[in-house]
């Protein structure tokens, strides 16, 4: 691997947090420094830096293929970067072996794009899975907890069903219930509204908002759905060509003079580029 990465002054790390962000501690929960990742010849992430504060909902926007998913997968160590650090709660997790990442991952839940429910199990068993793996709870206590989480995502009746019996939106909600089973501190959302109709998308957005309010978790959402970003994001970042072109709150985003960000937020086709995101970005 060539290590000729130029230290580049990038968009500044997070601005001082405004009071409404309910920041519990001074230091950020995640501090990402110089994250670089290539696939073959293509440099997907080219030394990005950002912070995620405790208790905020941080939205990473970007076009399809801009490296959003890759960024998200670094936050719980599912992928390793070529260079750079992911510091979670004061500890660099990029250096950890898979086994040592497990304690970290018990605190960080992830909602996958297609839900990724185990299709050989019922919805109840899916939600119970992390509880059976990681807690000493009795089956009765697990059943109660499963019902509570299914109620939270408004699927109280879905327990005995198989994942294939549910619609796309219901599958995502069931998967969200599973993610919340261990009462995580952080929830990572990988394109939570992709493939859903606008009304279901809004319902998912509402749910994300609600979880944030009730459980006071830190959330990271990657999406190209501007409506969702507006609905849930405390702060947003715009990822393009391996760099963050913008990191900040919505007011700053609206004022930003960055033309590409402006085009993206307005859903305009980018000059001399294919605009496939434009169609899917705006419900």
């Amino acid at each position, binding site marked *: 691997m060539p290590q000729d990465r130029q230290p580049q002054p990038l968009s500044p790390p997070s601005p001082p947090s405004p009071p409404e962000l309910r920041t519990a501690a001074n230091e950020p929960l995640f501090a990402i420094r110089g994250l670089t990742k290539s696939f073959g010849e293509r440099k997907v992430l080219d030394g990005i830096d950002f912070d995620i504060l405790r208790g905020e909902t941080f939205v990473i926007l970007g076009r399809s293929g801009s490296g959003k998913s890759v960024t998200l*997968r670094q936050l*719980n160590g*599912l992928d390793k970067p070529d260079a750079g650090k992911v510091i979670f709660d004061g500890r660099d997790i990029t250096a950890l072996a*898979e*086994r040592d*990442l*497990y*304690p970290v*991952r*018990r605190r*960080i*839940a*992830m909602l*996958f*794009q*297609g839900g*990724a*429910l*185990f*299709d050989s199990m019922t919805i109840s068993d899916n939600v119970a*899975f*992390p509880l059976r*793996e*990681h807690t000493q709870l009795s089956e009765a206590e697990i059943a109660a907890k499963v019902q509570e989480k299914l109620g939270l995502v408004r699927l109280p009746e879905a327990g005995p069903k198989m994942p294939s019996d549910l619609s796309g939106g219901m599958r995502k909600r069931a*998967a969200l219930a*599973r993610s919340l089973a*261990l009462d995580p501190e952080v929830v990572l959302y990988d394109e939570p509204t992709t493939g859903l109709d606008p009304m279901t998308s809004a319902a998912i957005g509402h749910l994300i908002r609600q979880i944030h309010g009730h459980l006071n978790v830190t959330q990271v959402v990657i999406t190209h759905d501007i409506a969702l970003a507006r609905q849930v994001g405390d702060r947003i970042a715009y990822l393009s060509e391996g760099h963050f072109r913008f990191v900040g709150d919505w007011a700053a985003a609206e004022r930003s003079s960055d033309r590409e960000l402006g085009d993206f937020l307005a859903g305009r086709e980018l000059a001399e580029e294919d605009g496939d995101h434009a169609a899917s970005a705006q419900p």
Partner: protein
Amino acid sequence: MRVRNLAQRTGEMAVLSGRAFAAMAARPLEVTLWFAQMDQLGVRSLAVAGVATTFTGMVLALQTAYSLPSIGVKYYIGSVVAKSLVRELGPVLTALIVGGRIGAGMTAEIGTMTVTEQIDAMRSMAVDPVKKLVAPKLGAVLVMLPALTVIGCGLGILGGLLVAVIQLNVQASVYLNNIVQYLTLADVVSGVGKSFVFAFIITIIGCYNGLHTTGGADGVGRATTDTVVTLAITVMISDYFLTRLFILLVS
């Protein structure tokens, strides 16, 4: 490039094997999963393995009688059938037939889970997919494939007996005595020993290809085909070297 690719895959399979064996021993022992896999991979392969080896035993008896038509040969049918089956055809045929069935099944199952992010979901929930998926399969196949091989050899010998008695007019006692006289413990050890190695090869290739599947339903199809082909070739090649090894060990 292809050579490097092959070397890399072999290396990664070695790592997976190490992790799988470690996971088999690690607590908690997933007893329920093991038994489920033994049923699915072993018990349900019994019919196909049994039919294949029974008819192989019958064919061996016929071939021996008709291709070596000298006077005394038919009194040796028992040992020819038994030795061929126990040393060679039993373990190899069982590995090829059962391995094709269960190896492809493993790749399809784990491969689908990989492309639908279920494996990543498991990892994100701090659960080791090797412990949860690979180790129970490895344990189950290591127990069941040798068992199927032994049962298969028994059925093959019975098939040979049937043909010898009904078609070739050999007395059952002559056929069986001949087996008892010539079949040695070394034959059995070599046959069962091979099937342990084949069990390991089948599971690791099947699971490795599943865990490295990319590209949707199409990718699962490709990975499954690749498993069946790789398995057959690896079993054949390793069979030669295992045979040499066991000959060396005995002499």
